[in-house]
């Protein structure tokens, strides 16, 4: 293993440790039983099958949104539209679930396809505005999030709301649309397989095909892309469609995998988490899986901590913030890296 890779591992490890120490210090101040608190936060998610299941369940949508966002980021598009797509595609999937009754396999496929299709259309629009008129994708995507939420909430409230439950929830979906649970004792569903498969395909697409090459080069230097003869407009559109399809798939999979009705009364936040995941993963598809699992793990750990101890649930956010800050600090431990590089250079002489 080369120095840089080894360093990355050491750095991540130390960063997590330090942020945990800071977290511990805060916990010490806020809790009467800091040790068990820490236990619940760090260890307990891995102590029960059910908890590990929770981690994976939570990671599934994060993988989708992280993947979608990293494709956009790689293309040089700062598009945060996955959030709105997640919400609306989820709603569409639930409508398919409510309105249709198909044989077991076609029903979820139809729901996912419709979700993806919606994602593709939305992202295509954002990408088109960007490519054609250079309209800020950040602004448009943020606005689209709110717009689709508003429209979705309207559709839900006026057409699909079940008046016989207390929240603004849709009618129950037909069971045929639900994704199968694949690991007994957990709620992990076939969405996991779809997610992993998607990661693999996206990896191949980005790093092993000419279209992926075009996306990455355009993202790194648009002028180079143009110079090379790439149709940068087309490239942006392809990347947007792909990202939209994945985000839409994520929304649909989450709803038919984890819910029996459509229950989101606000934007679910899973799409925004995609930006976080993409950054932590440095936009690399493979890393997305680990970043998603990592984030899911600390969130479940924090939930358990809040559930089992006297630590208020807000601590979750504080700890998350600290961990993100340290882990992403590139210069963190730079001195150590230089020393080991120097040693390596000396050894080679």
């Amino acid at each position: 293993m080369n120095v840089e890779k080894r360093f990355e591992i050491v750095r991540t490890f130390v960063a997590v440790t330090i942020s945990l120490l800071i977290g511990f210090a805060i916990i010490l101040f806020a809790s009467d039983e800091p040790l068990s608190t820490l236990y619940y936060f760090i260890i307990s998610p891995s102590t029960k099958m059910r908890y590990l299941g929770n981690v994976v369940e939570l990671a599934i949508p994060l993988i989708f949104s992280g993947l979608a966002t990293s494709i956009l980021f790689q293309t040089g598009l700062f598009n945060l539209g996955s959030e709105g797509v997640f919400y609306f595609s989820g709603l569409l999937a639930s409508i398919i679930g409510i309105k249709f009754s198909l044989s077991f396999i076609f029903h979820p496929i139809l729901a996912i396809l419709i979700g993806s299709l919606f994602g593709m259309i939305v992202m295509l629009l954002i990408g088109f505005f960007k490519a054609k008129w250079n309209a800020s994708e950040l602004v448009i995507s943020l606005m689209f999030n709110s717009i689709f939420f508003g429209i979705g909430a309207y559709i839900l409230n006026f057409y699909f709301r079940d008046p016989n439950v207390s929240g603004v929830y849709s009618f129950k979906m037909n069971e045929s649309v639900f994704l199968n649970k694949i690991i007994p004792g957990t709620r992990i569903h076939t969405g996991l397989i779809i997610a992993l498969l998607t990661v693999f395909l996206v990896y191949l697409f980005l790093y092993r095909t000419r279209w992926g090459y075009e996306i990455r080069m355009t993202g790194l230097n648009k002028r180079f892309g143009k110079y090379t003869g790439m149709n940068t407009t087309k490239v942006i559109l392809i990347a947007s469609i792909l990202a939209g399809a994945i985000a839409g798939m994520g929304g649909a999979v989450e709803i038919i995998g984890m819910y029996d009705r459509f229950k989101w009364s606000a934007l679910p936040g899973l799409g925004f988490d995609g930006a976080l995941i993409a950054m932590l993963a440095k936009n690399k598809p493979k890393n997305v899986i680990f970043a998603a699992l990592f984030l899911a793990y600390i969130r479940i750990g924090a939930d358990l901590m809040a559930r089992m101890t006297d630590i208020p649930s807000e601590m979750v956010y504080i700890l998350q913030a600290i961990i993100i800050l340290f882990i992403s600090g590139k210069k963190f431990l730079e001195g150590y890296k230089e020393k080991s590089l120097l040693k390596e250079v000396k050894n080679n002489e």
Partner: protein
Amino acid sequence: MNSFFDTIFTSDFVFSTIRVTTPILFAALGALISNKAGSPNIGLEGIMLMSALGGVVFSAYTGSAFIGLLGAVLVGLISASILAYFTLKLKTDVILGGIAINFFADGGTIFLLYYLTGDKGTSSSLPSKVLPNIDLPIIQNIPVLGDIISGHNILTYVAIILIIGVWYLLNKTATGLRIKSVGENEDAAKSVGVNIMKVRYLAMALSGVFAGLGGAFLSMGYVSWFSRGMSAGRGWIALAAEAMGRGTVLGTTLSSILFGAADALSNTLQLLGIPSELISIIPYLATVIGLLIYAINNTKKRKLKE
């Protein structure tokens, strides 16, 4: 429909547009400065929230609205400084850092509020102070104009002064020149001895101060208490306004006003009985349309040029 236009073309409507715009404008100007220095501050939403609480806490414990305001600004400054430390010194990705600040603010404000008041919802039990509304001498007596311009919260006037201040800073002063150079070509700035760390830090800190003012406006001007999540997406709207304004002071100001007006309009439209879910999208739809018109025109102009 008549009554609808009656409500739009009133001084009340313009007055409320200015009020709605104020917090957005503060944050958008903050976003502008930090963006110009090449370190976008995604944490504005969280910083506003923390400052809103900071203002309430400082004013409640000192009994002075002014100290409360200083407190809010200080909280903004410190949060931005922490963000700056991580992004400049430890090279944390600036976007990630901003996301982290937002997370921290979400949890931290409620944590502190609970610690201080035993309540996770509002600070209304704290005797916090408010910043005064100001009647402008002479102007207040001018018909219509007086109704629109006079009688705003003092921070609204601060915001207006800051528009000019930021323009002056960026376009007339050495600091502004350096901020822009660092944002556009940091190597160039470095090569003439500009301390890019210092400039970036300054820009970040200023953006924090501005967001701090925005936060203070929310909890000490708009209403007189802090309540959880009260920045309610204004930090994000501000980022959008800055991006829409294409990094110019004038553009940022106009975009902020567009957001403010659209929001004020949506409040008024509620009276028409349109489903509230659909009304809620009006400001965003207006933005998309405005932005597209602008972008299309711009593209045409550029095409002509080539």
